Every structure is written in structure tokens, then in C-alpha cells.
């Protein structure tokens, strides 16, 4: 299994931030899906965004630029 298949969960405070992040992800054209937050991870809202960890570096800059605060959880696929 290669590292590029590892999934990362982005956890946010609010639905507003989830949807704002989704717009940034769509503009970057990277794979993502919105899923319920797995019960093992605390989050401040019920949705989180799953991406390939290999895309994280590309998105982190956008998120910081837009002052979107988030937590990252790496999940082995």
C-alpha cells in the first residue's frame, strides 16, 4: 500500500467552514468527499472532509490564507 492512498480527515468548527473549504477544494480540482465525523474523533460539527493525504500540502496553504482553522486526522486506508 502506498502512502498516497492514505486518507486525511479535515475537521472544522462549523458547517460554514466545511462548505468554504469545499469551494477551495473544488477550485483546486482535487478528490474529496464530505462524510460524517467518525465517532473516534472529536469535532465541533457533524461533517468532515476526507481527502488524499498527498493533496494536503496543496490545500493547507489555501486554508491558512483564508484563516480557516482545522484539525487533521490521518487514516490508514
Amino acid at each position, binding site marked *: 500500500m502506498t502512502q498516497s492512498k492514505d486518507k486525511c480527515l479535515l475537521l472544522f*468548527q*462549523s*458547517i*460554514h*467552514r*466545511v*462548505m*468554504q473549504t*469545499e469551494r477551495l477544494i473544488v477550485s483546486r480540482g482535487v478528490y474529496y468527499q*464530505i*462524510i*460524517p*465525523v467518525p465517532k473516534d474523533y*472529536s469535532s*465541533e*460539527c*457533524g*461533517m*468532515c472532509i476526507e481527502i488524499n493525504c498527498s493533496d494536503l500540502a496543496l490545500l493547507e496553504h489555501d486554508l491558512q490564507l483564508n484563516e480557516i482553522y482545522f484539525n487533521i486526522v490521518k487514516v490508514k486506508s
Partner: protein
Amino acid sequence: MGNYYFDNSATSHPKPPEVAKYINEYLNNGGTYGRSAYDRVITVSRMVENTRVLLAQVIGTGLTNHVIFTSNATHALNIVIKGFPYRNKRILISPLEHNAVTRPLMHLLNVNGVQHYILPHRIDGYIDLDRMRLLDLKSYDLCIVNHVSNVNGVVQPIAELKDLLGDVPLLVDASQSAGHIPLEVDKNNIDMLALTGHKGLMGPTGTGCLFIRNPELVSPLVHGGTGSRSDSHLMPEHLPDRFEAGTPNVLGIYGLYGALSAKVNPGFSFDDFKELLNRIGSLNSFRLVSAGNSTNQAPLFSVTSSRYSPSELSNLLFKRYSIETRSGLHCAPLAHKTLGTFPAGSVRFSLSNFHSSNDLAYLYQALSELDHDSKQR
């Protein structure tokens, strides 16, 4: 038949077809905002947040999470007026405030002893900035200004006002200006702004928003579930959740999205409108109640008649000409006292982009005939 609906300051009509289209889409597909993460909810959440982005563009801010959905402008104004920390217990207000402001202020006066004072102004209620400079502005906690009067349509100089106020927070009631006048809260450093979705923005009733630059200043008015930080019994601090307890009006927000996505170009020019005002102003039996300077005039105004009471005139306009207007005090007794039209009030005419220059000509013709009738008697 033309568009003879001149009561757009009460609520706009007609709405752009996109309003019904998106409301219908929601009714057919359902779903709620947040709380879960299946497709129906994600779609609704996306639409609510896209609407918030469009509202932020209307307001002129990049702080999209500082745009709080409310049920109307009154709700938004109440959040600030009742949640603000008053240290000096002194508020400045414009002389043209609506009851949406003055009634909560009377509540504050009775409960907390917070006093309100009327800004110096000209005869049409336009704030006199030169005389305002003589005030000890730092002794006030807050200033509240109706951006556009819902009685005479005067546009207040909110940018210059904020310059003068400095650190004193400014709350702008944009109920009648949103959709007609650029709001530009970031450019003008406006602290707080309340608007409704169903007037100039042409969306459905039950929608509105509050923009709040420094949310830590204001306590939430309503407490409850937000779908976030559900492990806590306290309201979350982050925006917009801090002020958005309870399921939002998703149906209305879908309609508002339709309204904000629509492009409705005005069917008349500002010159057409100015000409209408000039011609009505020349009719002997009517008094035009409008801005003293046409550069400060939004597309609404009032008249009083030397012959008819406001309710009689409004009824005549409807019965004879199918023209729909609002008569009386327009929930703004303070404005009518300022303008010398209290207690009878006036008949108000408020336009929308769906009017044409022919509709304006029809309105003038109707008033002209009623003026002529007055001379005959």
C-alpha cells in the same frame, strides 16, 4: 397592464422567477442544514452557505462567517440592541428611525435605563454632520442609523458618519437600502448592519441577516442547538454559530438564493424618477415628502394631501387606478414627527426594478387627476 404595485418598501412584488424556482426545488428535495452528512443535507448546507456568500457580496465584506442569518431586519437589530454592553448607557440615533429600533430602545430604557438621543439633522431628517462634530461622541456607547428612511427615502451618509464616530460602534439599519444602494461595510469600516431579504433584495419574507464585525461585543439573543459543539451546554463562540441557534429558515434561504442570483435591470432611470418627483412636487394639493437634495434620495417617497387623509388617498388610488400603496405611519412615528406628518402620516410610494418609466408616468397621471379633482371642489 403595467406594474401598479408601489408598496415595495413593505415587501417587494413581483419576485424574480428564480425565487419560486429555488423554493420549489427545496420543497421537492427537502433536507436540513448541517447536523448530518448524507447527500441531501450536504446539498442544503452548500446552498445555505452559498447564499451567505452572496449576502456577503451584497454587504461588501470578505468576512463571510460574520454574516448571520436572521428572520428579518427587526430580529437582527434586536440581537445587537439587546446584546450590547452599555457602559455609559447612552445611544445616538437618527431622527428617522423605525419602530424596529425605537421599540427595543424603549425596552432598554425601561429595563436598564439606557437613554437614546437624536442626532442633529436637517429638515428632511438628513444628519447634520457639522453640528454632530460639536457632540462629545465618546460619551456614547453606540450609534444607530436608518440608512434609508422608509418614509421619505432620504439616504444617510454612513461613511462620513462612521469617520466622525471613530471608535464608537455604528449599527446601520439597511432594511430599505439593501438592493438599492451599495453597502460597502468593509470599505467604510461599518461595525454592524441589519437587513431584510424581502424588500430591495426581492427575496421571500422571513429572511434577513446581521453583519457583525466584532462579535465578542454582543451577547447572543437566542440560545439553543447549532449542530456544533454539541457536548457543551454553552453557545459556541465561533461564527456564525454563536448567533444562529435553531434550524435556519432553509426554505426562505433557498428563495433568497434565487433572488440574489437573479439579474433584474431597472425599467426606469434615476432621471425618470427625479422627473416624477419634480412633477408631483408641482401639484398644488399635494405635499411631497422626500429628501431635500435629490442626490440623497432612494426610490421611495411619500405625499400628503390637503384634501384627502392618507387612508382616503390610498384607497382612491387603489379603487380608481389599481395603484397599491401604504398609508399611515409606516411603523415610524419618530420619522413622521421629524418630518411634520405626525399623527396622520402619509401615503408612501416605493419602487422596484420591475417598474418602467411608463408606470411612473401612470402614477403621475393618477395623482395629477386627483389634484385636478381637488381644484374642482
